[in-house]
């Protein structure tokens, strides 16, 4: 090839252009790589967030017929006559934290007036669905654990 010998007329410029293209190509590749890298970099590898599994303590803390709100975990722990279950306390409408109104026996959302009963079913308001039921089980130490990231069909009770 002409690298060694005398270059053809115009060979120098074509090779020069080839190098510029190589450079621009490498720059494009670097940009593409930077985009991938940026995605990697921007997605944190560890999170400083409470774990999805909340520990609600020993079951005997909750008398039968009680609705207890765990503000930190954003859940209700309810000990109904059929057993334990847990509802998400986050309104299905726009994510406000609901409160339990013991006098009326309903869960009410302060933002847009959605109301739910103690089984999470929607009674009133703009919420599209009722409050989801969360998975509840007993740990080896006998503590009630609630997985906030896993919903279960309604009316699944934990009997202790």
């Amino acid at each position, binding site marked *: 090839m002409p690298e060694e010998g005398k270059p053809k007329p115009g060979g120098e410029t074509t090779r020069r252009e080839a190098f510029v293209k190589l450079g621009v190509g490498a720059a494009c590749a670097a940009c593409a790589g930077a985009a991938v*890298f940026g995605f*990697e*970099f921007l997605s*944190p*590898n*560890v999170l400083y967030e409470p774990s999805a599994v909340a520990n609600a303590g020993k079951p005997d803390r909750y008398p039968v017929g009680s609705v207890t709100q765990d503000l930190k975990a954003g859940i209700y722990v309810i000990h109904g006559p059929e057993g334990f279950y847990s509802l998400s306390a986050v309104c299905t409408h726009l994510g406000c934290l609901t409160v339990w109104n013991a006098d009326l026996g309903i869960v009410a959302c302060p933002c847009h007036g959605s109301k739910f009963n103690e089984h999470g079913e929607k009674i009133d308001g703009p919420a599209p669905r009722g409050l989801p039921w969360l998975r509840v089980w007993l740990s080896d130490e006998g503590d009630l654990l609630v997985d906030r990231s896993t919903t279960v069909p309604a009316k699944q009770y934990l009997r202790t």
Partner: protein
Amino acid sequence: MAKTLEGYISELQGTRVWRSVFRGGAGANNLRRSLAVQQNVFLHLASVKISRRSLSFRATWFLGTLSLGTFLILAITGILLMLYYHPSVPQAYADMKDLQFVVSAGVFLRNLHRWSAHAMVFLVFAHMFKVFYRGAYRSPREFNWVIGVVLLILTLLLSYTGYLLPWDQLAFWAITVGANLMSSVPVLGQKFRFLMLGGNTVNANALLRFYVLHCVILPLTAAVFLAIHFWRIRKDGGLYTGQGDSK
């Protein structure tokens, strides 16, 4: 394949949208090339043509260009590092550890930022001496020299304020010593120090102040002075080439 790719590119460059964005764009003739400089917001501070002599390595050793290069690297890495940094005590230090241990390429970015900062200080000093020994500070470039001195001081301040941010022993005591130096200024020294640290000791307030200085105030100031610096190069007749200035 390459042909067709090029065809696509030139077709793309011919579209109205492209031309509305890039106007003339780059091209093979001198008009297009001139327009490329004139019509680019970043390049328009430079003249369309420059003396061949000023491009030689001997003329500048590219020290000014390299200083700008480090500034750009520092800006990019710095912005990325800010995403994983909380300017609070002692979380700042934990963030350094997280950068090192869990953030993808976090330690690389931190290294790059740190070493570039050192390189920038060195390059800016070298730039200054090079300019001096070539006599490039002489009329009509006196004011650009002064701007250069301001940029040197800004560089040192940027480096100094950045020093505190990791909140390790090195940072803490370097800043403590520096702050006490400041307080030895007659009359106003104590007040200066109080304002700089936002209190009497190097603690959370000082960290936050240094953070704001390092990430907002000083870089913006430096960017403004950089723009003036480059603009003055052109206004003062281009890079000094050692000719035509002597009496």
